[in-house]
């Protein structure tokens, strides 16, 4: 009998999965099928939007910032013509999915941080977010708690993400809406001299592009933050 040499790890190649059908999974399919049966949208439309949701992420935005850090001309382009600069990292704001996203069309602007100005984005009204270039918003971004408190007490909320800014740094909260989206271009951190675009892209996390974190050499993950319920929920 041939010995089975383990040059691969079964635990890694076969990830565990939830081996039962949950009510929520069934409910999602049920709503979708009922909407299709009632003619609200087609199965094809749903499939295309789902593919869009599957493939978006923060990498194009990170790459755009990394390139801007390395190339002053590209940085000027990014600030003056953000739609054109986005195209160079593979995102076409006018046709982000190739078939249109009604809640995503927009004017897009990149907010440059300086040594005296720090930008952070929010959607006070709902949860508008630069999805084509930054992917789906994190859960906390959608919460009324973040949305309401950030515009009133930005330093306090940023501190909850572990971001403490000195008093001589002005904090600008930029409120997105259905027609206007923003992302932040943070400053290049110390300790990254000689880095490639690839290396820089890795430390420009989603949170840095929202403005709740600053890029730092060696840090490639987002802040994990508790999601808090609103103290004064809508409708109160």
């Amino acid at each position, binding site marked *: 009998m041939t010995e089975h040499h383990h040059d691969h790890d079964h635990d890694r190649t076969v990830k565990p999965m*939830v081996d039962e059908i949950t009510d929520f999974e*069934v409910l999602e399919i049920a*709503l979708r099928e009922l909407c299709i049966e009632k003619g609200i949208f087609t199965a094809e439309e749903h499939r295309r939007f789902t*593919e869009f949701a599957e493939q978006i992420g923060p990498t194009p935005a990170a790459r755009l910032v990394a390139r801007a850090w390395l190339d002053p001309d590209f940085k000027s382009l990014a600030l003056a013509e953000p739609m054109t600069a986005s195209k160079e990292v593979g995102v076409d704001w006018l046709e982000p999915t190739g078939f249109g*996203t009604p809640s995503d069309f927009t004017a897009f602007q990149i907010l440059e941080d300086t040594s005296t100005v720090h930008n952070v984005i929010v959607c006070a009204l*709902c949860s508008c977010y630069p999805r084509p270039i930054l992917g789906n918003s994190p859960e906390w971004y959608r919460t009324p708690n973040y949305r309401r408190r950030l515009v009133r007490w930005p330093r306090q909320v940023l501190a909850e993400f572990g971001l403490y800014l000195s008093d001589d740094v002005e904090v600008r909260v930029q409120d997105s809406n*259905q027609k206007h989206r923003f992302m932040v271009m943070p400053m290049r951190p110390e300790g990254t001299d000689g880095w490639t675009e690839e290396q820089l892209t890795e430390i420009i996390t989603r949170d840095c592009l929202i403005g709740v974190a600053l890029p730092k050499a060696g840090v490639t993950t987002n802040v994990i933050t508790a999601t808090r319920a609103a103290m004064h929920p809508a409708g109160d």
Partner: protein
Amino acid sequence: MDSEALTQIVERNQVWPRMAAKYGVENPVPPWKTSLDGLCDALDQGSCGTTAPSFQERRDEEDVLSATVYSDLPYPENQLVSLAHSLMARGIVTESELQQKLSAIRARLEA
């Protein structure tokens, strides 16, 4: 708006954090999340000129319901159940339709 089907789903509490822990799964969100994203986008696009909730109505109702009736559910379960609630409150989906659909889909998936 009271829905027996939705109440039962909330009470059974098969929420992703619990199911993932039970099976040792690490994904932070359930596998149906992107399909729900697609559903919301398709609905936002298709709602124009129909009785279906608009983007703004859908999000406003989700915020209110997630903070009140469905405050025990995590995200995105609260988004999903709030959406079901919004569709039922408008009569776009009825209780009996939903009940029948849920049974038929579960039977299909467990066949």
